[in-house]
């Protein structure tokens, strides 16, 4: 195996999905990669002075500007005539990408910079204490959408980040999950074979914020995909070229794995709402494994 480009000694929680995903991404990207990272769990646990877990050049500026800073790095490489031999990754959490960072990301995509943006989606502002973000799923218990007499959790559905990215007309857009590590690495390599702005959203369970035992990170990630709640999709030039087909599990199988959804388990109405979200995905992306036809199953 090639040398690890994201090494041990970082202070991520045991079983952190994001730390694993970051390691998979940079190992797939290779040593000729510059990483620009938003503030968040990943940056905090991997670069506390004077210890850095990164074997590649790494740049951290602020919470919401990785896409813009990366645009500057990419422009500098273009000016130096070196862009063709160096990969540029801009990355951040769901907060730094879809909320406070959406403007800079949109600008980067619109201007067509040759950068891969990776969003590590753990579905809340984890680094600051599990506050709700625009990518927090419907009815999740977070610290700013807590349960109470007047609340059953986050009242809004997940912001459709993949669709927003696609609307920018970029050459490559994919969703992935840390539960499918080889698929994630394949998508990173695929992205770097294409010039222009690329986007990959990675679903990364968080043992602390989602409240489950650390060893279940991959299991939880897989179930999310297998319910249809987090479909694995791959788009090239706006066309859907691949999905991970599933034998859909009922959403309850996913909800019962994490205490952040525990309050929903005795509420069939809420479960039905969430099931309809999953069903909508299954329908829209044709996720169900067909018994008869020989459609390609993407691993």
């Amino acid at each position, binding site marked *: 195996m090639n040398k690890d480009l994201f090494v041990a000694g970082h202070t991520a929680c045991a079983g952190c999905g994001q730390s694993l995903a970051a390691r998979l991404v940079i190992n797939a990207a290779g040593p000729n990669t510059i990483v620009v990272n938003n503030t968040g769990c990943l940056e905090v646990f991997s670069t506390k002075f004077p210890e850095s877990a990164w074997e590649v050049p790494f740049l951290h500026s*602020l919470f919401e500007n990785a896409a813009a800073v990366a645009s500057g790095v990419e*422009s500098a490489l273009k000016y130096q005539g070196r862009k063709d031999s160096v990969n540029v990754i801009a990355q951040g959490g769901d907060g730094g990408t879809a909320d406070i960072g959406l*403007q800079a990301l949109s600008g980067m995509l619109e201007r067509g910079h040759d950068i891969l943006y990776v969003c590590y989606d753990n579905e809340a502002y984890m680094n600051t204490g599990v506050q709700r973000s625009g990518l927090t799923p419907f009815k999740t218990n977070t610290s700013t959408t807590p349960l109470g007499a007047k609340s059953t959790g986050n009242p809004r559905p997940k912001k459709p980040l993949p669709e927003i990215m696609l609307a920018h007309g970029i050459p490559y857009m994919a969703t992935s999950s840390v539960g499918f590590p080889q698929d994630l690495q394949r998508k990173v390599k695929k992205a770097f074979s294409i010039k222009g702005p690329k986007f990959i959203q990675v679903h990364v369970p968080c043992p602390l914020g989602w409240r489950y035992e650390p060893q279940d990170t991959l299991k939880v990630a897989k179930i999310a995909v297998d319910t249809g709640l987090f479909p694995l999709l791959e788009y090239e030039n706006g066309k859907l070229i691949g999905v991970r087909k599933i034998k859909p599990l009922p959403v309850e199988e996913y909800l019962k794995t994490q205490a952040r959804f525990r309050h929903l388990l005795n509420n069939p109405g809420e479960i039905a709402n969430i099931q309809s979200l999953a069903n909508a995905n299954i329908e829209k992306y044709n996720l169900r494994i067909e018994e008869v036809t020989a459609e390609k199953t993407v691993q």
Partner: protein
Amino acid sequence: MKEFIDGSIAVAKVVKLCKPGVVSAYPITPQTHIVEELAQLAANGELDAQCVNVESEHSAASVVLGGSAAGVRVYTSTSSQGLLYMNEVLYNIAGMRLPVVLTCANRAISAPINIWNDQQDSISVRDAGWIQMYVENIQEAVDFHPIAYKLAEHKSIMLPVMVCMDGFILTHGIESVDMPSQEQVDKFLPPYKALYKVDVDKPMTLGPLVDPDSYMEARYAIQETHKDVLKMIPEMAAEFGKIFGRQYNGLIEEYKVKDADKVIVAMGSVCGSIKDVIDELRSKGKKVGLLKIITHRPFPAQQIYEALKNTPKVAVLDRSVSLGSYAPLYVEIKALFFGKPKKPKVISSFIVGLGGRDITKDSIKEMLRLLGSKEKSGEFIDLKPELLKEEFSYE
């Protein structure tokens, strides 16, 4: 060679001569012409830079941060709201010790929204760690940009520099300017060699999280470096003089201060008007003078002290105010004299020309007239009482 030239065009042209590799800015009046001219120069093939048309000032500053961190010379420009919008990035750039050069077209800050000139914008970011210089005319605006790059990129300094020029007055004014040649700039300003950068040939981590055990030293280092900047600016200005033929001290300019009874302290284009008033009053036998501050950060306390320690009365002219307290320059002038063996008998504060209100010769004379034996701690000049009322009413 001498040209009759618009301020924004002149700045764009000298920036082009400094050969930045990444240029990124977001338009805001009155900075727009600088960036439009740079875009035109790039489109013509005269400027070999990546021009990144970003979607906001926050991103403009972030793009030049990234470009500088990748080891390339960069440039940006903004004003007022834009400067405030990129505020956190400014602190970031200085804290990361990146040699960014930014032209601030000084403009008032909303609300109320006002596009005309005062200095509240650049004054309000004076704590960020940037070197800040205020130019009096378009010649200075041109000359201080190569100085800014050379200063910023010096291996002992590595701090960003903000060249502040009064919006509209200088950006849209037309003056006779001795434009430098490419040869002169090349002789004065060597190519940028980064001390640290993101580069796959030598990986490192920039912008780490720093905890209470290490943060203070990072800030102390910048504070100490600003002391080195104070020493270095006159040296660089002298070197500039040898190559370009124009002499600056770089920190301050004393205009008929030596024997003056009354001296005005000011920054920016108003100094030109003040000099005219001083000449006029001197011809009538009045002993008045001007202390122009060019470098506001780092604050040249020692130089100002030496210049004014024997002056009986000093009027500090601020084109900004720290609402709820004193005017910013006034506070620093008062502070530097505290506890010193010699100091002026009177140091008065005058707040003038906010939101582009004209500072006329009469305004300046009014200030000198009001500079009496009693100190004034914040006198607004040319105020219109008819626009003020004690209680709000719809009428």
